[in-house]
């Protein structure tokens, strides 16, 4: 499983769970995110706004948040994989590469990833209650998929 696959698949599951009305929009947003994550996560005004509708109003979209959170989780897993490799195991890394061979992720690890997801979601400007939901949805997705 590549980073791209992991991030997009995980984020899509989170969006399907919490904001199914955004699913149709998810594909273009995820493509744009993979091209330039910072641009998608930034709410800066774009060039050419002088010709726009004049409404400088930001709509709370879950897709960019889910993609940002999934990226943070993937990077965390890679860090952990590095540690595991050093320890001689590398099982989590194998799990990411070959799902059938590796052991299941532990509940403690899932809780750790949930906490990470909540923290990252809050960093991205999500309200506390929605961040908790993102964390729960991500935990459930990882539990199913990993």
């Amino acid at each position, binding site marked *: 499983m590549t980073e791209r696959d992991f991030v997009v698949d995980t984020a899509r599951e989170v969006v399907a769970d919490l904001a199914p*009305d955004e699913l149709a929009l998810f594909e273009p947003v995820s493509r*744009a995110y993979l091209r330039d994550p910072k641009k998608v996560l930034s709410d800066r005004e774009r060039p050419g706004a002088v010709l726009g509708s004049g409404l*400088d109003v*930001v*709509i709370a979209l879950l897709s960019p948040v889910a993609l940002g959170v999934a990226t943070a989780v993937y990077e965390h897993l890679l860090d952990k994989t590095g540690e595991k490799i050093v320890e001689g195991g590398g099982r989590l890394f194998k799990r990411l590469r070959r799902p059938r061979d590796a052991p299941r992720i532990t509940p403690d690890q899932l809780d750790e990833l949930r906490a990470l997801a909540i923290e990252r979601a809050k960093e991205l400007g999500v309200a506390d209650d929605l961040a908790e939901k993102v964390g729960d949805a991500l935990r459930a997705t990882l539990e199913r998929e990993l």
Partner: protein
Amino acid sequence: VGPGRPELLRTPSGTTLRFGTLVALAVATTWYVAGVYGSIWPPGTFLDDASCQVRANLYLTSTASVDPDETKWTAYRDCMSGLFVPRLGWLVGGLLLLVLVAAAVYVGWPRWRIRRSRLELLDSYPALWAKLEGPLDELVERAGLARRPEFRLDATSTRAGGVAFGTRRRPVVCLDAGLVALLDRDRAGFDAVVLHELAHVRNGDVATTYATLAVWRAVLAVVLLPYLVFTVDPLLGFDFANLGSPVTVGVVVRVLLLVLLVYVARTAVLRSRERYADALVVVWTGDTDPYRTLRAEPDRRRVLRWIAIHRRGSRGSPR
């Protein structure tokens, strides 16, 4: 209100008149600056103006009063008119450059915008298009357009905005991802913003708008920037000693005032088209405040409000 031609569309928006003012000011500014270049280049001729004053015994800035001797003025005008033809190259060349740069910006900018911001066609995403096609066609019909413009998506923008651009033949309406999300969350808000952009297409002001911005940018590139550089730092040596001279300051201030006039004319064009589009949205929706759900904190930056294109400018998240 039906999709026919509303009374409002029979009322002139004044956009073309304002655009004409902008073009006249841009031409006058370019003419003035090209005339200044013509009076100092080639270097052997830069005292010609002064020599005309000496020959006519008329010193324009030596006293505060106007010399009443009409013969001096006649001699001065005769002398100066002899300088017109040699300087004509500068005047025509300056205007030609202005037109060329404006044309390049006008033609190239929409393409550059699509390419740079990767504004993808909405119908290239089948799932998304299946959801949007019906509502968008309904709005296109409500706006009284004979055919659907090219709809594109800015997937990187979470704003509830849109923009109409392109050319008269090939108008493009780009929707922000945030606006598309409004379809399920705030249909009235979605309709209002899309109708606003379609109003620009219906008014046929997309071309005028791009021409306005093209002229403005051409004035900045052809007139203001080179003029300021060569006036303030003629040898490009990063030596700004010239700025201490009252003559330099006077010249710079005059040019800046002319460019300010061009800017005001540009803002007037853009503002009038926005107001007109807003008025059409009110007619088409039958709602006197169609953007009410999209109103966030009012923008309290007073100076920015004075020069704002949009009257309803607001920033933040929807209420």
